[in-house]
């Protein structure tokens, strides 16, 4: 059966679909990276809200993370896609400007970022709490402003504690991009399905896509392990 598989379909140029797969793969990585970074920003905001915010802020952040943790990502993505774009258009209309059209990449990044933000909030919250309080008190005693404390002491100190969780989140981000295929965003999984449907070679293309995702995962793993070792230098060995 192996000889029946036409590997020329994977060629990089037309009529081979290899180029399209790689382009879709690139798109997936862009979506994952953008969403991951957005998630970090939202997570930092959420974590500080939960730890240092007032009671109302804390509850709002709590509701946000509860929603993300309890509802499937697919449903959340649908919701964020429709609600997000609708709200944005209504906001624009309220200000008198016509609705801006968010292109596919930005919408996908927004959607993945919002989902990642919920998980990142919990990771950062746990990591900040793991920082010895004495360090933060010492910084405050030295007269540093809260923002400076955050920037100079809290964030660098919590980084090694946050890394395992954030590494896990990167893996989740890369795999969540596949869900965008169900909503119709053009990324690796959707392109794979289109290629497979056009050529009827389902096994071949899904296998190829699987190899691409696996490559991404393994390379990311190596990179993250190196990062973790660097961040943990000088600290006692992890439990």
């Amino acid at each position, binding site marked *: 059966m192996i000889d029946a598989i036409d590997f020329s379909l994977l060629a990089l140029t037309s009529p081979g679909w290899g180029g399209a797969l790689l382009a879709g793969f690139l798109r997936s990585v862009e979506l994952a990276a953008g969403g991951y970074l957005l998630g970090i920003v939202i997570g930092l905001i959420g974590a500080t809200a939960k730890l240092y915010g007032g009671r*109302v802020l804390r509850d709002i952040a709590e509701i946000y993370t509860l929603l993300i943790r309890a509802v499937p990502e697919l*449903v959340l993505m649908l919701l964020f896609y*429709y609600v997000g774009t609708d709200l944005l258009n209504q906001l624009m209309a309220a200000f008198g400007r016509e609705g801006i059209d968010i292109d596919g990449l930005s919408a996908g990044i927004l959607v993945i970022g919002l989902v990642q933000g919920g998980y990142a909030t919990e990771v950062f919250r746990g990591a900040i709490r793991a920082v010895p309080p004495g360090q933060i008190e010492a910084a405050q005693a030295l007269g540093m402003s809260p923002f400076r404390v955050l920037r100079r002491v809290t964030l660098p100190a919590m980084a090694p504690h946050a890394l395992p969780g954030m590494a896990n989140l990167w893996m989740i981000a*890369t795999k969540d991009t*596949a*869900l965008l295929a169900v909503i119709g965003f053009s990324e690796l*999984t959707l392109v794979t399905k289109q290629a497979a449907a056009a050529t009827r070679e389902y096994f071949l293309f*899904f296998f190829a896509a699987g190899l691409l995702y696996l490559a991404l995962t393994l390379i990311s793993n190596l990179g993250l392990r190196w990062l973790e070792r660097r961040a943990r230098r000088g600290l006692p060995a992890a439990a």
Partner: protein
Amino acid sequence: MPDIDIVTPIHPAPALPLRARLAPLLMPHRLVMAGLALAALLAIITQMEWSWLPVYLPKIGDGLLVTLVLLASSVIAGFALALPLGAVQVTGPAPLRWLATGFCTVIRGTPLLLQLWLIYYGLGALFAQFPEIRGSWLWPYLRQAWPYGFLTLTLSFAAYQGEIMRGAFAGVPRGELEAARAFGMPRLMVFRRVWFPRAVHRALPTLAGEIILQLKATPLVATITVTDLYAVITRVRQDTYLTYEPLLLLIAIYLCLSGTLTIVLRWLEGRVPSGH
């Protein structure tokens, strides 16, 4: 002398009086937020279009049942598969260890959606090439969609849980294993009476979280025509052209499901002695 006190009975801490337990809920800002939430809920119920609900309620019930059955069955089968997967990665002969590690790495490194489509449509292509399969006794199952959903969800759960079990098996204190050997227990008895139960015990706290994660993975089977809850709501969206109402209902149902599952699992966890 043993340094663990196994004689003094452990009493649970006395429960707080009702007033103290309700106090956090009655704080002023929470009351305001609860009021706002109630107002929003009332607005949603009265202002939005819900006339489709009575018509589709039985189908939604069926979809919910499919989701729950798929969840329960894949968790049970996946956990059963995860135990040997985890164990063999710690002890086992090298080839089996590589097989198990490879399996876990591949499944955890690729998206579930891709695995689902690969198994369903990839095998489907195989059936097209070999029409003789249609005569076999397996065919009534191979032609349906739910066995593939069940298989993929099971394998996925097994891979993730297998990784956890590997950590659990590796983390059982060696002293206990050595003590059991010192008692003269044969290897199999050590496994059966000490190593295996202790490892499963260590893994139990994370099981609740993993089950919720599995619940969140189930909607994907709708893409291979299994009519679960998500598929039914998609049909409602198609038939009624409404965007928000069906999605809001779906989110509400999943919130209730997650909440119920978490409460039930936490209660079960409380019933299992933690041994520390």
